[in-house]
């Protein structure tokens, strides 16, 4: 086991070599490609400054039309996909460490030398190096499309979720409605996955997922309608603005609870992980996916987790509102940490429910409670408390 000093030494050595190799090899190669293409090439001096000075780098990207204010940067990098994937990766690591602590284990320990912080990267390399197997009888175009469809569904509604008054990709007056419309695609994708794999376990898992997602989308939608009634808008920005004085979790506690339960079911997490119940269905509708296909599915799931957690914060926990000593985005991150922890915790303490119990819970109790919650919202709104 290396000490921390040795680890630092290694990191410094690696950084030194990278800094040495960039001007010696990478920049000449890039220039050799760019000059014949006729792209306006900045001076080598400027490129070197850009590497060590982020501000120059940002300017540089601005000139190419890829700066932080451009739509491309927003979608690909900051409030968009890269940020979500980063949060998802950290969530995977956090989940493993948290579960390990609950179960008297240590969890990932060696990769990265310090509490296994590089374990997600090690996992990524493992998945990339594995062969992607396609079953002979599978419906190949659909089979190959599914991981990317899941990622598209999980990632696309992130575009409508604002992270602070300034950080957002797209604004819409009916943002909440669009988000629910996008989430509604998910059962279809899962059914395609179950059918296209041509595996009996995948098929049963796909059907289970279909039943589960359909029976839980209605309470999910109904519990969010209470918030719409109180704020009088489907625009997520306005919903957050309406919570300046009081978070909606206080008048809408029942709604928040229903949203939390349905969120767990929507994410197929224990106690609602029946579509991938590993002891009876091998891995449910994931069964035939291997290698990076499985990696993408897994990442998409956690991106979806991040998206729904962010939605929960915006609807019930007042979004980025908070005392002024921290910037709004910091408040958002703190709340994100709390909500993600709350989503991860049931995995350590609960057993899986059965499909008939799950459907009864969804169609009978949760819908009834969601309607009751709607009347609470109506009463609160008509009394003019908020």
């Amino acid at each position, binding site marked *: 086991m290396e000490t921390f000093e040795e680890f630092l030494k290694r990191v410094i050595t690696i950084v030194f070599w990278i800094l040495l190799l960039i001007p010696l090899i990478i920049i000449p190669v890039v220039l050799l490609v760019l000059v014949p293409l006729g792209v306006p090439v900045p001076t080598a001096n400027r490129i070197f400054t850009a590497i060590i000075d982020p501000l120059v780098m940002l300017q540089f990207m601005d000139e190419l039309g890829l700066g932080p204010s451009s739509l491309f940067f927003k979608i690909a990098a900051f409030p968009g996909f890269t940020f979500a994937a980063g949060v998802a990766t950290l969530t995977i690591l956090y989940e493993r460490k948290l*579960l390990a602590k*609950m*179960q*008297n*284990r240590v969890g990932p320990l060696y990769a990265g030398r310090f509490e296994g912080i590089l374990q997600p990267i090690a996992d990524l390399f493992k998945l990339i190096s594995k062969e992607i197997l396609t079953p002979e009888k599978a419906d190949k175009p659909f089979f190959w499309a599914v991981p990317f469809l899941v990622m598209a569904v999980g990632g696309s509604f992130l575009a409508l979720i604002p992270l602070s008054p300034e950080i957002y990709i797209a604004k819409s007056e009916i943002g909440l409605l669009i988000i629910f419309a996008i989430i509604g695609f998910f059962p279809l994708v899962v059914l395609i996955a179950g059918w296209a794999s*041509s595996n*009996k*376990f995948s*098929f*049963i898992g796909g059907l289970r997922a279909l039943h589960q997602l359909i029976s839980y989308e209605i309470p999910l939608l109904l519990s969010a309608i209470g918030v719409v009634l109180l704020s009088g808008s489907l625009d997520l920005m306005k919903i957050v603005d309406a919570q300046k004085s009081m978070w909606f979790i206080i008048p809408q506690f029942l709604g928040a609870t229903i949203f939390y339960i349905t969120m767990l079911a929507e994410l197929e997490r*224990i*106690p609602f*992980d*029946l579509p991938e*119940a*590993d*002891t*009876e*269905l*091998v891995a449910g509708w994931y069964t035939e996916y291997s290698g990076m296909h499985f990696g993408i599915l897994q990442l998409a799931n956690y991106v979806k987790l991040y998206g729904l957690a962010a939605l929960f914060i915006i609807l019930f926990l007042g979004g980025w509102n908070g005392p002024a000593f921290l910037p709004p985005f910091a408040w958002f991150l703190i709340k994100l940490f709390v909500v993600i922890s709350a989503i991860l915790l049931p*995995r*350590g*303490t*609960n*057993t*899986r*429910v*059965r*499909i*008939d*119990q799950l459907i009864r819970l969804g169609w009978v109790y949760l819908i009834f409670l969601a309607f009751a919650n709607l009347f609470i919202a109506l009463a609160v709104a008509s009394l003019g408390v908020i």
Partner: protein
Amino acid sequence: MEVVDKEGRTLTFSVGPQHPGSGHFRIIVTVDGDFIVDVKPDPGYVHRGAEKMSEERTYIQNIPHLERPVIIDSCGILFPYVLAVEELLGIQAPPRAQYIRIIMAELNRIISHMYWLSIFGIFLGHSTMFMWPMGDRELFIDLAESIGGTRVTFSYFVPGGVRNDLPEGFKERALRTCNYFEKRLKEYNKIFFSNPMFLKRTQGVGVLSKEDAIKIGVTGPNLRASGVASDTRKDEPYSSYDTIKWDIPVRKEGDCHARGMVRFQELFDSMNIIRQALDLIPEGPVKVPMRGQVKGKVGEAFARTEAARGTMFYHIISDGATHPYRVKISVPSFRNLIAIPFLLKGSHIADMPPIYWGLDYWPVEADK
């Protein structure tokens, strides 16, 4: 996709032999929607001919290979063999050896039940209940290792006593482990056995009534969970078990929850028995001195003991040679196998893991 019947309503698939929920054992299941309509168990993947092998080896050479079928309960499967051979030889183990055998058999029962409990937890999707008992099981394995020398396959019981005496300071260590483990069991109860989700998944699932249980012939904890107070340790006391006091845990419900609770209670009882045995244990030799090859006199011998999964029975026929003429093993798992199709028919797919593992069926033991 292979759909079997003409109406196209049912789907047949095979659970095992490499399924994560089965071991080397296959169940061919036909489902109609979420309900199981037909079940065909397919045992025999790990048949190794333990009975035939016994005819080719001497009485002493038989000991290591006879415990292979169920290594997590190796003393349980060896106990009746040793008793039967002693009957053939006309000897009896000294009192100290009898109590050491009790301690070892109960340690093995705890080790086996802990393994069962952790798999039961993960079969229901409760990963914490998988990790905790697997970790705490090591404490008892360490205790047993200090006596027997290896982790699971001890080959510790020999005709005429046990191989060696207890190590120094064993009593203190055993009592300390038991005291610690009792605290842990209370935590198990909080997080798993009184968890409403667990109750919802197991209560009323796979109900085996008292009449059916007797008719099918299940033994051990499964029989006790169906309301029959049957325990070979009480009914036909052997090896000084009659000097030890405890109550047989009996539940009337006969469902998966009752089977779980009976085994949970047996963890307490086994520790209780170990404590009493450590108090009662006398000084003296641990082995009857024997010289030369062990030769049974011409005749037959029977022995029946209570292993972790139920009644373990041996019938040995000797023709006076150094090898037994015939060894018949009757294992509890094979009798519990008959209950699997009986209970699975008509249940949900999701109830398959708790019913299957609730019976504590051990494929290797059944296949011998």
